[in-house]
């Protein structure tokens, strides 16, 4: 009989997959077999740990190992710094996504049609019929919100702007300087998706420039955040355009660009 893997072994297995180092106590439950259960082999444990890690909240105290996890430089969002470069691989999680190529109102209209159960294909209005009565109520409960977003948001090439936060909860915006795979609206990229901003990644005027060479999208999500983001999406967009209409242009556009707006 083999000895069960140790915490460092499992931790090592995870980091070798490019994941950030987990907090030891994060791994304890995984390495603790239930009563009358035998611990699976290391590859299975690694897979379980990876899945849990990607769906965990990086900012909660016992998820990542704070002593070994790099964080963003302080003042990263300082717009007065024209250009700088990250000097470590920083794990972050995505907490906001914005398609910069489409107006908010256009997105509101698309979501509204979806809500009414309609979809346009060219000029044709198509009714999206739920499979059954249950299907309809599932949609009302938010069960099929993700499909809703896929259809309403279509396949956009972006660029997308992301709001991200590191292990310490420090936030920074970034946008796609070049197209990065798996960046998009949920479900392409969910809220809480884990991303590594790699050593050498560029930062300009407080915004991270996302490009394939310096960004690794690990995937995953934070269920609660993702759900509330999707459900509150239409309202958030409406509020954002409403704000802009009532206030002056320079003001905070819906919690969007306050970090960088005063650079000019």
């Amino acid at each position, binding site marked *: 009989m083999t000895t069960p893997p140790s915490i460092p072994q499992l931790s090592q297995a995870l980091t070798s997959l490019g994941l950030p180092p987990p907090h030891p106590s994060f791994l304890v439950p995984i390495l603790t077999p239930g009563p009358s259960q035998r611990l699976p082999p290391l590859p299975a444990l690694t897979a379980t740990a990876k899945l849990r890690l990607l769906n965990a909240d990086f900012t909660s105290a016992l998820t990542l190992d704070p002593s070994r996890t790099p964080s963003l430089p302080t003042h990263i969002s300082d*717009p007065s710094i*024209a250009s700088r470069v990250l000097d470590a691989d920083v794990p972050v999680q995505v907490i906001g996504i*914005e398609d*910069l*190529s*489409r*107006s*908010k*109102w*256009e997105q509101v*209209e698309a979501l509204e049609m979806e809500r009414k159960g*309609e979809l346009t294909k*060219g*000029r*044709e*209005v198509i*009714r999206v019929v739920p499979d059954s009565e249950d299907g309809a109520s599932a949609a009302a409960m938010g069960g099929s919100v993700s499909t809703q977003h896929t259809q309403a948001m279509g396949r956009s090439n972006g*660029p997308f*702007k992301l709001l991200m936060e590191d292990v310490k909860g420090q936030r920074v915006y970034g*946008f796609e*300087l*070049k197209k990065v795979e798996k960046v998009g609206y949920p479900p392409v990229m969910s809220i809480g998706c884990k991303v590594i901003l790699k050593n050498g990644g560029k930062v*300009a*005027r407080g*915004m991270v*420039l996302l490009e394939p060479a310096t960004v690794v999208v690990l995937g995953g999500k934070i269920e609660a955040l993702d759900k509330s983001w999707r459900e509150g999406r239409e309202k958030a967009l409406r509020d954002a*355009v*409403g704000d*802009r*209409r009532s206030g002056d*242009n320079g003001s905070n556009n819906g919690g*969007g*660009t306050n970090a*960088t*707006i005063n*650079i*000019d």
Partner: protein
Amino acid sequence: MPGKILCVAEKPSIAKAVAGHLSGGQYQTANTGSTYIKNYSFTFDFGPPWGNCNAVMTCVSGHLTKLDFGPEFNDWNYPPPEKLFDGPVHVTIDEDNKAVSTNIERLARGSRALFIWTDCDREGEYIGSEVRQEALKGNNRLEIKRARFSNIERAHVIRAAKHPIDLDERQVDAVAVRIELDLRIGYAFTRFQTTTLRALGGPLGDATISYGSCQFPTLGFVVDRYFRVKSFVPEPFWGIRVTHKRDDINVVFTWARNRLFDRATVIILFERCIAAKTARVTKVQEKPTSKWKPLPLTTVELQKVASRLLRMTSQQAMTIAESLYNKGFISYPRTETDRFDKGMNLMALVEKQTQDNRWGAFAQNLVNGAFKQPREGRHDDKAHPPIHPIAYCAPTGLRPEEGRLYEFITRRFLACCSEDAKGQATDIELEYGDEIFHTRGVIVLERNYLNVYPYENWTNSTMLPNFMLGERLEPTEAMITDGQTCAPGYLTEPDLIALMDANGIGTDATMAEHIAKVKGRNYVFTRPRAGGGGGRSRGFNDGEGEGAEAPTGREARGGRGGRRGGAGGGRGSEGGTGGVEEFIPSTLGVALVEGYDRMGLETSLSKPFLRKELEQRLKAICEGRVSRGEVMRESVRQYKSVFLESKERVELLKAVRQLSLCLFLFCYVSWPGHRVCGTVN
């Protein structure tokens, strides 16, 4: 073999034209009980098995019979409207049509066979069945045949007379179902709406609020767009434009990202361009390009073009096309087909146009070898070819609008038979900072079809100077541009037709009627579109009867400006107002749509879904996939359940009153803050 052949056309003009062709002009004319209808007698060799026969050509005038409820349904309140979904209906012959029917019945008595010459479409097939019904009353041993034709050119007509086919019972069934459903659904909902709203009193006290299963979705499109325009919120966007001057030419490069809705991002990208100092030419590509000639003409396309370029409403265009067809100048104008049959002798048709002094030389050139087979679209209704000229007609022989439409149809046809326009395109791409910019130059080398088709144009862009692949240059200027999104415009007639077409509301043959109907009912109004696109800054324009003047200064007159007199339906007829008309719902139109939408029915009546399903079922009948009875039962069930649900939620419809508040139900919906009202006379 003895015996006469009775021929019946759909309308007098066709009867006369066909009689003329078959008899070689040698026919006797006799009057009938109807002023408009004549009987033409002649002899014609119908070929085997008929041989040389005496023939009488007569006609009906559209539908011969009518479907209606019995007198037990005369009272709008009792029996309750839902009974109209299954109450008995009767086929009757109108007083006006009695003489027509008697004429057919009488002629049938001495005849051996009946040849039906109604138009070859669904409706025509049904009218043929009505004719058959009457004729059989006079002679139940009559053999029934149907001539298949799509224009009234001589050779075509003679061929049709010699190769008759049978009536298509499926098409007859489809129309019968449509007529019965329209009657039941229309009556039930019209009575329900009207009695409900009349009870509210005010201007609705004696109004009839009619419902039609095509009308309402049509109205729905107009209202949807109205709300999209009204609730639109403009948003700013930013972009980057690079200009480079070379050889004294300013070359403008556009940003590959076009525009972004985030200023900070654009500024950062711009800054990186400036920091890069030089740009690199990453692509220089020269390649032939072409502008495609148009597809063969369908009815929907004709209607769209007519309102966009010829300043006719779709309904006017159809009426004029109908008259050109009746006179034998063009093929049947109701067609979905956008491909010519390979066997058709198009060259012969082109040749007929060589005598014209406007496009004759172009046609001659096609005849001399420049002819190219037209492009093939994907639609084929298997009944009619695309709309094309049949015979040459000098402009002097036509009324001015007929002339314009004939000219368009002919030019379109010649364009189809010509060659795509050819040009040379140069694409240049720059990489500047992290960003890509490009520019394109086009030189038109051969105009080809454009020479005969002035409705489209293609021009040279500015000449581009030479750029070398890989060269580095310092752009003369780079700047951030900004702009604002603007609201979509209100629906125009071409938009509306396109929406109806895409959503299966009505057929190409009936769309124009539905549009005219929602105007006639005062559910929507039209006015000339002011200037380009729809911006919010545009003043409110009452537009009524004031020709093409742009609404400058109108806004200052505020709420009092737009006094609306008379009914809106007549607007289209004046034509020549110099622009496309746009559609705006009346308060009543908005209220009705809102009322039904608020009921939250699974399928709102203002949406196209129910009707589309019905149209698809009618098509299925024509294709033999379902029976008439099944479609009837299923559709009645569906509409009846919507009806009963609507009845339950009638309070929401009554909210029409809250919505309109004032007495001015038949007026334009006002802009916020600009209530512009007027009462209907």
